[in-house]
């Protein structure tokens, strides 16, 4: 495979790295958020849920446009970048992570929230009567019961990050090894009429996506079987 451009494999590796890091961050932020959304009685929680869900519907160009401005030298991104002498967070791997976290957030938060809701109050009340602290009840009761939700959230978050395109195209700057992810590489190869390379990547994406959806379906089926 040495004949194929190193560009190609570089973009595969970069994409996996981006998706993996994004997924870990999303699980860390998404779990407490989902817990709060599932348990809180605050009147404004659905407003927060709606804000998180916005990227589901908005065109990626909306997020891309505002990110380009906020990551830039006149926005907070430029301020953060200046900490290490940078000028902008656009065109950086860190910038892509920031964009991906926002963009894939609903895909992680919603399945976990649904799983927490499905548990109901009862198991947690039982845990409380057995003198489990809320923290212990969360880790030993809620999290294990919500496992299918976590699995679904992680798989969807990872897959959705792999699948993002418009956002990366707008804030990435197409830098090999740093921001040139798979979807952009395919776009590039097609534009440059390098169809062999485009074919390899595109066919690979189809196989990957097939595997993800099949896995998801199997997870759902299994968890349904457990509950029944």
């Amino acid at each position: 495979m040495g004949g194929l451009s190193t560009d190609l494999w570089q973009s595969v590796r970069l994409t996996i790295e981006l998706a993996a890091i994004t997924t870990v961050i999303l699980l860390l932020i998404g779990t407490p958020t989902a817990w709060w959304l599932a348990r809180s009685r605050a009147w404004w929680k659905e407003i927060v849920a709606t804000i998180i869900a916005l990227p589901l519907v908005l065109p990626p160009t909306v997020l891309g446009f505002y990110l380009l401005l906020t990551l830039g030298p006149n926005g907070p991104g430029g301020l953060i970048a200046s900490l290490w002498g940078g000028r902008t967070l656009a065109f950086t791997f860190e910038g892509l992570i920031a964009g991906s976290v926002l963009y894939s957030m609903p895909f992680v938060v919603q399945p976990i929230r649904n799983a927490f809701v499905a548990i109901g109050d009862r198991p947690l009340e039982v845990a409380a009567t057995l003198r489990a602290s809320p923290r212990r009840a969360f880790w030993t009761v809620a999290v294990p019961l919500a496992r299918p939700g976590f699995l679904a959230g992680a798989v969807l978050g990872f897959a959705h990050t792999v699948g993002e395109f418009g956002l990366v195209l707008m804030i990435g700057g197409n830098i090999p090894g740093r921001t040139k992810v798979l979807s952009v590489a395919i776009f590039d190869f097609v534009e440059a009429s390098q169809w062999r390379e485009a074919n390899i990547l595109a066919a690979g994406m189809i196989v990957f996506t097939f595997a993800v959806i099949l896995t998801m379906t199997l997870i759902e089926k299994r968890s349904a079987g457990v509950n029944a």
Partner: protein
Amino acid sequence: MRFAKLARIALGIATWVLTSTSVPAAQTNVAVAANFTEAAKEIAAAFRAKTGHEAVLSFGASGQFYTQITQGAPFQVFLSADDARPKKLVDDGLAAAGSRFTFAIGKLVLWSKTPGLVKGEETLKATSFAKLSICNPAAAPYGAAAVEAMKALKIYETLQPKLVEGATITQAYQFVETGNAELGFVALSQLTGTDTGSRWLVPQELYSPIRQDAVLLKSGASNEAATGFIAFLRGPEARAIIEKYGYVLDGQS
């Protein structure tokens, strides 16, 4: 009595609609290389005012349009940013051979929004900037010209880690416009009508002339608006607009 009044109102509305919108005689879809965006809009407006035909413009990277046209995209006219792709379309049998001509020769500019930042080639050699924006050299001729110029100055290797690529020249411009890149290679036409920031007109000897060819696609051969648009593009009105946007006309460079 009542019917007559209604009829009069209906007639009034009908004449108003007919006279105010003046339905175009014919329509054509034109694929326009992104660098030519502003000039093309002005030319299409002049074309419509003169002939009544409407040219519907789509903007993008030349490479992208080439790929789309080979796959049957519904364009009748292609205004490329190079001469290679229109020639290939003629060779592929997708464009009318006799219709190909150079409508403009593009000029490359190094541009920054910061006044005084761009002074000349020494700005590039000093490399005291973080990001230099260009457009994708594989798909956009202005990107290829920028790479050629940097290689001619023997600074391409040094600058490569600082390069950020836009998919089109419009995006390369926008990276500089939003301040995300301090400077970038753009088309002179994009800076028409503004003198903000600082700029350096890259000397022609550093890159091969960007000969921008137009071609009539096979699907436009029998379309009155398409053939009319190609003819209009050769005419004095269009040429004046093209020159106004900083392009050089063929045979004058």
